[in-house]
Each structure stands twice: as C-alpha cells, then as structure tokens.
C-alpha cells in the first residue's frame, strides 16, 4: 500500500459513500433486485477491482457509481453530494467534471481521429481549440500514442484503441475513473500493458480507479478487491501488491 493511500485513509474525506443502496427493475412478479442494499466507502487514490459472476449486481453498481443511473433507494454521496437528489442534467455535469469512463468495447467514435476522440470531453467542457489540442496531445502522449494522433479507430489495434479511450477518460483529470472490463477484448500481452497504464495513472496522477474484471490476474493490480454476489457485496478486502 502506498503512503498516499494511508494518508488518504486517515486524513481526507471519502471520495464516495454508498449507504443501503438498492436497485430494482420491473414491477410485480417480474420485480428483480439488482442491488439488495450496498454499503461502500471509497477513499481518494484507491485502485479497486470489482469481481463477481454476471448478474451479481456489479454492473448496476458501476452504473450508479458512474452517475449514469440513480439508486432505487438508499444514498449515494459523491464528494459529500447526494447524487440521488440530482437531475439528469446535474448528473451529466457531475460526469463531465469528475468522472472518466473506460469500456470493454472501447466506445470510440468511428471515422474520427484519435485526437478528436480525446478532445470530445474537452469540447463539452467548453475549452478553446488551442487548449483542447494541447491537453489532448498530452493525454495521448501519456498513453504512449503521440504518433497516432491522426489515426481513426479503424486504423488502430485493439490495445491502441483502448489506450485512446483511456486518454479520453483522463484528459479531464477526473477524480474517479470507472473501467468496465477494460481488458475483456484484449489478449494477455495487451491486457498487461493496459493494466500497467491504469496502475501508473492511479499512482502518478492520484486518480481513483474502479475496475470491473473477471480475471484474477487483472484484479491483482488493484489494492482492494470487492466481490459481488446476488446483489450484495460478498467480500471486500485490501490487497497487497
């Protein structure tokens, strides 16, 4: 465990807290509890791996953490703000300013250059062209793709596409980076590269990372592993590197 995390544990307020969060889908007999009451506290600077079989509620939990979805009941505090009380647009603004997303399927805009993809969140932040270019180039440089700025996703390998996606997620310097099976579509060599990249982002930029994964090798990079089962947290343990 890094000294930063220790400090964070003791001094800084938590980044986010979940109190008795549930999520139900459907009505009547078809009613399904995706989350049956989750309590969770995340501190700034943590690198969390979320594991569990499909249907265990981890994706629903990620959607709520990512402010893409609101809990059915319970409380989600992000930096002390109750997300449940926010409107759709307020949640969008929260994502814009504090969150970064990395997806299993990369989710880059087709026929759009790497640089333009990375610029996208900055456009929504209203930055001028010069600053956008400067920050997007820096982010591509940070993921080791400075020579691929003008390439479109179709011209990049899977590993490279995921790096562009990571550059897009970190270009706004978010407080929390949510990665949903970031290595799910990659071979083991590329997966290791991506994990090392995420680790360095977590370590060097102090960005909190929450990552869903099915592979224990990938989870080993994290310093905390949370396992979901049947809509509940089955285990939550610190993990030494």
């Amino acid at each position, binding site marked *: 465990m890094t000294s930063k995390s220790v400090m964070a544990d003791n001094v800084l307020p938590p980044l986010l807290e979940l109190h008795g969060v549930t999520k139900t889908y459907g009505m009547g007999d078809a009613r399904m509890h995706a989350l049956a009451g989750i309590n969770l506290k995340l501190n700034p600077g943590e690198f969390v791996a979320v594991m569990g079989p499909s249907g265990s509620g981890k994706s629903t939990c990620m959607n709520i953490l990512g402010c893409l979805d609101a809990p059915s009941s319970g409380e989600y505090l992000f930096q002390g703000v109750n997300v449940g009380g926010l409107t759709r647009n307020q949640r969008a603004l929260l994502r814009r300013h504090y969150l970064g997303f990395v*997806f299993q399927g990369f989710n880059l805009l087709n026929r759009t250059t790497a640089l333009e993809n990375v610029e996208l969140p900055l456009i929504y932040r209203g930055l001028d062209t010069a600053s956008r270019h400067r920050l997007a180039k820096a982010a591509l440089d940070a993921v080791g793709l400075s020579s691929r700025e003008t390439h479109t996703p179709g011209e990049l390998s899977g590993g490279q596409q995921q790096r562009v996606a990571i550059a897009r997620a970190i270009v706004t310097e978010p407080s929390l980076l949510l990665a949903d099976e970031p290595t799910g579509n990659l071979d083991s060599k590329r997966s290791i590269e991506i994990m090392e990249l995420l680790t360095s982002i977590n370590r060097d930029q102090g960005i909190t990372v929450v990552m869903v994964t099915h592979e224990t090798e990938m989870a080993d990079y994290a310093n905390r592993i949370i396992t979901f089962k049947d809509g509940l947290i089955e285990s939550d343990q610190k993990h030494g590197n």
Partner: protein
Amino acid sequence: MLGNALLLAFRELRRNVMRSLLTMLGIIIGVAAVIVVVTLGSGATRQVGQQVASLGSNLLMISVGKRMGPGQTSGAEAFKIADAEALARDVDGLAAIAPVASGSTTAIYANENWSTNVSGSTEDFFTVSNQPVAEGRMFTTNEARRGASVCVIGPTVATKLFGLQNPLNKRIRLQKLSCEVIGLLKAKGQSTMGTDQDDLVVIPLRTYQRRIAGNQDVNLIKVSMQDNVNTDQVKQAIEGIMRTRRHLANTEENNFNVMDMKEIAAMLSSTTQTMTGMLSAVGAVSLLVGGIGIMNIMLVSVTERTREIGIRLAIGALENEVLLQFLVEAVVLSSFGGFIGIVLALGTALALSGVLQVPFVFQGGIVIIAFLFSASVGVIFGYFPARKAARLDPIEALRHE
C-alpha cells in the same frame, strides 16, 4: 454552446459526405423547383404584359356575334362601314377607328406564293394596331376612298414572296386583284396567343370589299381611345349606339361584342399567375417531401448512432447539447441544400428562359423565402429525431449494438 454544436455537427456531416448529400437532395430539388417555376412564371407574366402593351392597352375590339364563352361567338349580321362612321361621329374620347374586313388569301409574286391574312381597312389601321409602316408609305385617304390597288405587307410576307429583294413598287396578286406594294410594316413578332403578327397584307377596305370579298361587310371594328378616358364609359357608349343601329330590343342580348385589351391582359396574366401558383405548390410539396426525407435520415441516423450518443451522454453531454447538435446537423443539411438549390435554380432558370424565350426576371423575394423555408424545414423535421437522441438513456445507448 451553439459554437460547440456547430463544431460537432460539421464534424459529423463531414464524416458522412455521401449520406449528407443524399439527404440534401430532396431539399435541393424542392427549392430549385419552386424558384425556377416562380422565376419563369414572373418572366412569362412580364412578357404577356409587354405584348399586351405593344398591342396598345387603350384598344377596343368590336366584333360581330355574341360571346358564348372563351373564343366562341354565335353568328350575326356583319357591320357596315357606316357603323364605324357613326361611332367615330357619336362617341367621345376616340383617338382612331379602323373598320376591318379580313380573310385568308394566297398572295402570289412571280412563282412564289404564300397563304396569308388579307385585311381591308382604313389608314387608321396602322395607328390602332400599333403597327406602323417601316419602309415606303401607307395608303392615302384618297387611295382608301377610291379603292386603289395598293397594299402594305408584313415582314413575313415580304420574306416569303420576295426573299432578299426589295418588295417596294412590285406588284403582287391576291386572287383577282393585282396590287402594288407601297409599304412594309414594322416587324412586331409573335402575339401573346402565338400567332405571327407580321404575316398579313393590308389593303384599302373598299378594295377588299369590291375586289376580294364582293360584299359590303366589316367583321371587326378596332378602336383606340384617347388617353385619360374612362374605358367603361366608352364601351357603354359604343354598345348603346351599336344596339340602336342593329335594332336590338331591350330584352335581346348584344349580338356583337366589345372587348377591351385590359380585359385580355388581365385574363392572360391571371392565367400565367394561376399556372405559376400551381407549379409552385408542386414545388412546395417536394420541399415538404425533402423535409420528411431529412427527418427520415435523421431518425435512422439516431438509431445508427445510438452508441455514439451514449458515449456523448456518458462523458457528460447535456440533453440540450445533444438536441442542439442533431438540430444543427439537420438545419445545416437543409439550409446548405437550400443554398445549392438556389444556385441550381438560378442557373436553370437562366438557361430555360433562353430556350423558352421568356425574359429572366430575378425574384429576390422567392429566393429568400425558399432559403428560410428550407432552413425551417430543418428545424421542424430535425427536432423530433434530435429530441429522440437527447432523451436516450445512456446505459441503454451504450449497450446498443
């Protein structure tokens, strides 16, 4: 925020050049159709006006027979020269009056012959018809009175019979009449009805009656009024006198017809305006169809781009920003299509006006209206798909394949 939306919209359209062009096609055709029709229509209206003005707008035509409907008359007794003389004497405000008897006859010179219209009239004919003599002279009062064998020919007849020769002082034959060409009419071109106004021979009325028709009939009396006289009053006066002279009882309808050129002009221009209106409506319908085409493509595009919209929403795009982006895309498409349509229409109208021999009348109003209409088509038909995009659930959208 609008600047961002423009930037994002342009990036998106540039990525799909082919789709963008195809989407614009409907608008291009609609705008072009409306502008071409209106431009050519107003050219035609102006042409009709010019032609009627060249006939003389203060002209009255008194013809034999009752008007049964457009172009139809019932038979009745012909006029006599005395009718024209009575009108000249008793009606105030007339500038000139020309009784006309005419018929179709073959004109012969040497071994050339040409079937043409021969009109017997007085020297006032040239004034009233607004068709002066260009070369030579018109017949004198004396020649008219004694029924001299002289004629004034139109340029078409001159060309057909004489080719490049000078027709003056040569003699042509009209049936049994041999007459000397003393004058050549000024070229006037086609009339509004499409007849050649230069294809005629004018001879003194008495010559026509004695030597060609063999009777004393006058088919038509052409009257030109002085300026600043009331057309309706003159028409009423003429009708009154003619009814008396033709012994019509109060209960009988006129068996002659007094037509005024302004009426004809109004009738003709209202016809062209109706045509223009109808064709513009067709153009407007195609504009509407173009708008629906845009809506269609935008809806497909929203479905096709669901995942992209999900990405935008996930990284923090507001509902309004997505809405605005799609709306701006639609408006850019439609107004750019409108712009291309305008350029295309003006080129086409210019080319067609040459082919159809209609003056090119630039109608700034319709160009502006068509452009604004095409832009608003974008707003109206782009709004529904844009709203659909903006209201997508980011989670669902991201999961979309």
